[in-house]
């Protein structure tokens, strides 16, 4: 009950797995190439909080706190997070998490690095904007290190920002919980994001891909200018491509960590995806959109360790939020059909000609 494998037969529950893990389970079930991993469920978090004095101690610290007193919030936040990191984890949680970790390593054929990410449950909180965004720990090796990062994810519920937000918006501390994703680390040669819509005009016949060298974090955080590709969703042909100067990349340092380094002159202005890979990434986004039945925003990576054709991996898929709430800006003037509309089309060509002769 404290862990849940992404490829489990059981149905995922959002309250138990959080948004990110639920999505990974659903995509795994749908046959998408999701790197293997498991969720440490909210039951684990609840056990830690409730089977010890942790929750009571935290609540007493939070009660009466003034959200406008930033200094006081900072002090309490630091204290709570230290408590969570130091609190011994109940035996059952510990055991089950270790077992899950060991099975994952076995599945991967030995000890491999993992990514540890928070997976929030709170529907009424702007998830991406504070609860989860920062709590991604990459290239973590070893059981104890992983356990520690899981606790750091839990602790992230009590950052000053998160606490201030809850206090200011009268969101109860009661029922607050957090799941954590532990997933095989992708050895990303190239990674990025893809949307199943053109975000510049709401054109749903396109898939737009941002892509850069190394892990995708620099693309997501906007610290590197990625290559930008626009793909026709039906034909899966690129219709527009901008190759950018990709100056930095995030890659494994060979010593169990990751390093951010400058991209060498040669590769900077080379496309970070081949045409075949572009098609595969677009297909992946299309599968996610079809599965969820709504416009999706995905994170993906090309794994340097996997053979071509099997190396495009889906890291995350979430619904697109901007254009799903407003009409597309694609305007169609040539409506109708038959001779009238044919005439209109010919006349439109003529207008184009007149315009150009005026220039």
């Amino acid at each position, binding site marked *: 009950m404290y862990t849940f494998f992404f490829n489990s037969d059981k149905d995922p529950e959002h309250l138990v797995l959080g948004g990110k893990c639920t999505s990974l389970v659903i995509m795994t079930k749908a046959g998408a190439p999701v790197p293997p991993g498991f969720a440490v469920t909210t039951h684990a978090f609840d056990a830690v909080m409730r089977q010890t004095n942790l929750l009571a101690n935290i609540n007493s610290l939070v009660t009466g706190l003034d959200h406008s007193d930033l200094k006081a919030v900072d002090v309490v936040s630091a204290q709570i997070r230290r408590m969570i990191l130091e609190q011994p984890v109940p035996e059952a949680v510990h055991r089950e998490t270790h077992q899950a970790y060991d099975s994952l390593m076995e599945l991967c054929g030995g000890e491999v690095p993992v990514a540890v990410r928070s997976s929030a449950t709170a529907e009424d909180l702007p998830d991406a904007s504070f609860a989860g965004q920062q709590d991604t720990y990459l290239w973590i090796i070893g059981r104890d290190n992983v356990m520690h990062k899981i606790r750091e994810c839990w602790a992230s519920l009590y950052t000053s920002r998160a606490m201030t937000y809850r206090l200011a918006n009268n969101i109860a501390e009661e029922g607050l919980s957090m799941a954590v994703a532990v997933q095989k680390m992708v050895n990303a040669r190239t990674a990025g994001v893809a949307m199943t819509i*053109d975000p510049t*005009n709401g*054109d*749903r*016949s*396109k898939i737009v891909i941002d892509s850069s060298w190394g892990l995708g974090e620099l693309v997501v955080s906007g610290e590197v200018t990625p290559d930008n590709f*626009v793909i*026709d*969703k*039906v*034909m899966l*042909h*690129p*219709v*527009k491509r901008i190759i950018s100067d990709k100056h930095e990349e995030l890659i494994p340092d060979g010593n169990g960590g990751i390093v951010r380094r400058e991209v060498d002159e040669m590769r900077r202005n080379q496309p970070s995806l081949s*045409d075949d890979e572009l098609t595969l990434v677009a297909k992946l986004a299309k599968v996610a959109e079809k599965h969820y039945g709504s416009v999706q925003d995905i994170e993906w990576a090309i794994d340097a360790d996997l053979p071509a054709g099997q190396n495009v991996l889906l890291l995350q898929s979430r619904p697109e939020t901007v254009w799903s709430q407003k009409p597309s800006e*694609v*305007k*169609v*003037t*040539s*409506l*109708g*059909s*038959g*001779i*009238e*509309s*044919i*005439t209109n*089309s*010919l*006349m*439109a*060509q*003529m207008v*184009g*000609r*007149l315009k*150009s*002769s005026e*220039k």
Partner: protein
Amino acid sequence: MSTKLAKKSFDSPYDLHAPAGAEGWQELYPYNLVFRDNLREKEDAKFWFCDSQHWPNVFKPFETVGVEFAVRCLGAYNTRHYLVPPANGIEFRIHNGFCYMSPVGVAPELIADRVPHFLQRAGHYFQNWDSLLENWKKKVHATIEEMDSIEFHALPDMVPWADIESGAGIDPTAKMMADYDRLIQLAYQNWEYHFEFLNLGYVAYLDFFTFCKESFPNIPDLAVAKMVTGVDSVLFRPDDELKTLAMLAANLGLAEVFAQNDGAEKILSVLSQSEKGREWSTAWTNAQNPWFNYTSGNGFYGSDVYWRDHLDLPMGYVQDYVKRAAAGEKLHRPKDALIVERDRIVDEYSELLSGETLAAFQGKLGLARTVYPYVEDHNFYIEHWTMGVFWRKVRQLSRLLHSYGFWNEPDDMLYLTRDEVRPVLFDLATGWGVGADCIAPSYWPEEIERRRKIVDALSTARPAPAFNTPPAEINEPFTVMLWGITTDQVSQWLGADEGDPNQLRGMAASAGVVEGYARIITAADQLDQLEQDEILVAPVTAPSWGPVFGKIKATVTDIGGMMSHAAIVCREYGLPAVTGTGSASTKIKTGMLLRVDGSNGTVEIIG
């Protein structure tokens, strides 16, 4: 979405001189087809592009009949039949033996007045498409039948007794001259019919195309083409017939006969010795009419080789197919897969639309699909069938006159314009009638040798892609649709000497990426040089090169758009194609290693 052109011009035709040995070439062609010195100012004010798609080779004088009839009739339908609001016809000239075109727009103030006429006239055709097309087939068949009945025979030593007895009072030379005139008239007639539906087919396609470009910005042209084009064009029927014959040969256990013998005559004589062989021969004979009225060229050249006249050619293809069938290869095009793919594309784009945009999409697609088969099929009826019969009759007359010693080679009449032939016939009629020598044998052989040298000299150079200053934007619908000439295309031609010399750009006409060795083919009679898995590089290809498409990996052409015959046939065969590169056949040499990207329209010379 076209970019503005750099302020640059192509050379004037008046400044581009003929290759050495071709001086005086202008006199080979009708006076109205060449750039005349006293019209320089007027002609240089127009932008001309080379149509090497239809006329990749230098015209022999007689062969201008094709461009004259075809392009005149195209214009007449826009200008006089339907009054297409913004577009008149296309002017055409010959320069250094090659064909140049310049579209004629309608003055802006006159466009509105044409609209009601266009609505009425084109509307009538769209509303009665099927019945009018049915009638069209009858008219075209009747023309072909009459043309086929014309025969040019040697003149008798004396007027037949029957004509004396009946008091006919006329000798066979009158009929010979009338038949020649009638042959030309009938060709003209079917070229009129050729454009009766074609322009309308294109404008309906254009309407759907425009809608798709608006609804799905930057949608690949290929997607639009795939939604509209059929998989059962009669244009593919001749090749399909050969495949069926090959399968029949395999099923009847006759594969050995085709493997061990060569030539139609030899194979048929071996087959005649067995019952199964005779069964196959009957099927072979039945397939010939009309499907062997099929050229490996494009119908515009007197040297075009038609299957019907050269049975070794289709028999050679059958032999190849028999071999491939024996090796377990599936011969027929994957029609079902093509239909599934077409439906998938339509469904997926439909799903992105709703309400009136979906209704417009369905309505326009429906009309485009109704009219589009004509755009493909007409090619068989006119370019292949009509012109096959036409050239056969022209050759028959040429050989007859050759037998009178009028020229050195059997087909030399092609070195005369069609209007120069009439006085030659009268020369014959006079010599025969007077009982004296004709003048032709002492005049034409020498003159034809002079002309042959000029045509050969012209053939040593490839044509310039265009002349003079292009317009800021090219959006004349027929130029874009038929020739694939776009603003971007012209800028590329202009900037062709800059940029990466190993990279060529063209239209992404048929998807896929392959690498392979180039084989330059500039005429149909070089097709036998193609080896398995080579990349065909040509000024233009004809769909009738069908059987070679089973051999090659990709096609690259100098000219042609998404709807050019090369593009259509490559999509049918699932081969990558880049069309309209402007200069592939001159920049690329046989044996170079190429990377052809038919999805992005690029060709790279990689070794």
